[in-house]
């Protein structure tokens, strides 16, 4: 459990014992409440890469939603850059200038009616008030940074492959110049070769930009590769925390983490 943390002053995101319960009901019956996130606290420092791993139903996506400002927790608090995220009744959209999200499914997360340039330029116009021409210019530069050629820029999402769409989603998130990007299973739906390309892009961004990332994945190897710190979630709680570089089946102390690691298929049949 020896985890290095950056200095307290660098803390960007502070999540204090958040809890979120969903009620499944059909309007007539109240249904049983499901505790999705149960008293989770988490800190992300400036420029730090934190990964959350867990099985489906462990609450990791709900946690992502809470950090992004789209799922209001029942209790607890979320502070981003010193600002209380859920202080007001309504959704505080100002928070989206600091926190951006890249979703799992690149086929449904981009507006099919807009061109790739428009998709990336829109947040620049909305959040930074730059005019259309300047926004387009900056959008092209961002697309170039994520490895999309100008040939792709004029197309709509329908004309792009899954990997290209995910690059476009990342460019759109970067356009806002956020301090934190939340990636919810953003590489899970991709083929291994395309996944490697996107992971390479993330590693390049890690070097080039001083951004904090919260990466949610059920694939512990992906997290071990790109993150600094790993949180393991089970049944709504963070059960283990580990520095990513040193995590193996042997070094994991928590039985649940070991179980997750041992279930990952190995490349060769006989070890």
């Amino acid at each position, binding site marked *: 459990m020896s985890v290095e943390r950056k200095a307290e002053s660098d803390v960007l995101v502070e999540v204090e014992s958040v809890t979120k319960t969903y009620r499944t009901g059909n309007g007539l019956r109240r249904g049983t409440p499901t505790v999705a996130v149960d008293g989770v606290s988490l800190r992300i420092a400036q420029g730090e890469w934190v990964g959350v791993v867990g099985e489906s139903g462990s609450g990791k996506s709900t946690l992502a939603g809470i950090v992004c400002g789209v799922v209001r927790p029942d209790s607890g608090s979320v502070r981003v850059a010193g600002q209380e995220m859920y202080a007001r009744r309504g959704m505080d959209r100002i928070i989206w200038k600091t926190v951006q999200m890249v979703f799992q499914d690149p086929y449904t997360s981009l507006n099919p009616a807009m061109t790739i340039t428009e998709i990336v330029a829109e947040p620049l116009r909305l959040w930074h008030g730059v005019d259309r021409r300047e926004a387009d210019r900056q959008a092209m530069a961002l697309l170039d940074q994520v490895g999309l050629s100008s040939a792709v820029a004029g197309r709509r999402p329908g004309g792009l492959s899954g990997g290209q769409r995910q690059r476009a989603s990342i460019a759109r998130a970067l356009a806002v110049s956020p301090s934190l990007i939340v990636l919810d299973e953003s590489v899970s739906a991709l083929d291994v070769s395309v996944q490697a390309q996107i992971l390479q892009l993330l*590693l390049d961004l890690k070097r080039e930009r001083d951004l904090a990332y919260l990466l949610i994945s059920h694939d512990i190897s992906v997290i071990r590769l790109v993150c600094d710190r790993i949180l393991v979630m089970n049944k709504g709680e963070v059960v283990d925390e580990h520095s990513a570089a040193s995590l193996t089946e042997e070094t994991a102390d928590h039985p649940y983490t070991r179980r*997750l690691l041992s279930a990952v298929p190995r490349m*060769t049949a006989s070890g």
Partner: protein
Amino acid sequence: MASEPGQTVLTVDNVTVELDRPHESTPLVTDVSFAVRRGEMVGMVGESGSGKSLTASAVAGLLPRGVRLARGAVEIDGRAAGTDATARTRHDGVAMVFQNPMTSLNPSMRVGDQVAEAIRLRRPGTSRRDARREAVEVLERVEITRPAERARQYPFEFSGGMRQRVMIAISIAHRPSVLVADEPTTALDVTVQRGVMDLLDRLRADMGLAVLLVSHDLALVGERCDRLLVMYAGELVEQGETENVLRRPLHPYVRALQRCTPEHAIAAGGLYSLPGRVPQAGEVRTGCRFAARCELRTAECDETHPTLDAYAPGHLVRCVHVGRPEQDHHHERRAEGGV
């Protein structure tokens, strides 16, 4: 099915699948041939667009509308099998399990009835009552606890892993010789995946079921399969025993795929990403289909389309460079890299 252990139950012979258009031929799968023996699990791997799912559909007799079998044949239990989903009767020696168990189950029908329906379809004389009783036995065989009670529930009351077990129950209810499993665990967590894969392993031991496992996950097939078929752009590029294909891969594509995995990146201390993408149907050029992304590319690769040749008995590869110095040199480099 009265087949001996080790006997070939599935033979795929030169299967070529094309877009079903009157005046042009756009091949999607080209000349795929392989055989699967009783009790064997054979993995079919490749990226999206490599033609692995179409090949699997042809084997299961479920080729979708819009594509046709241009050449070749599929034989199951020594009898010819249709490849087309529009055929009136399907070969009863084969069944298929799909990726998403929620969309392949009927949401408004009790689980037990869905299994019973599969039994009655294959054996029309069976009474409803017998079929229901047998359905509970089949659910028990796929390790669903309290099968009699669970049989009366609906799919939404099952978890993802349990739904996939129900799908497997439906497909094995009539005791086929061959099960085609198309990404059966891709939507599942690793721990649930392990349970479903253990079940498939047990079914092939108990029933002698032959499994064709289609997956993009090299690690998964490496752990579970006896033999591997690697597809690229609609054709087989390497095939052989799992151990040989993964430990001593011959085709540059297989090596590149292995190096792309995060596990390899962690071990090697750096990420390798294979540039480019799989050529789509109609983009296939003359010469080697992988040439554009290959690090061993030479002029020869652009001119001649390599054939699938035996490098060693049972280990086939489609590459002009196999056995050449560049390849051997490459092997040494890899060994030094601590792979």
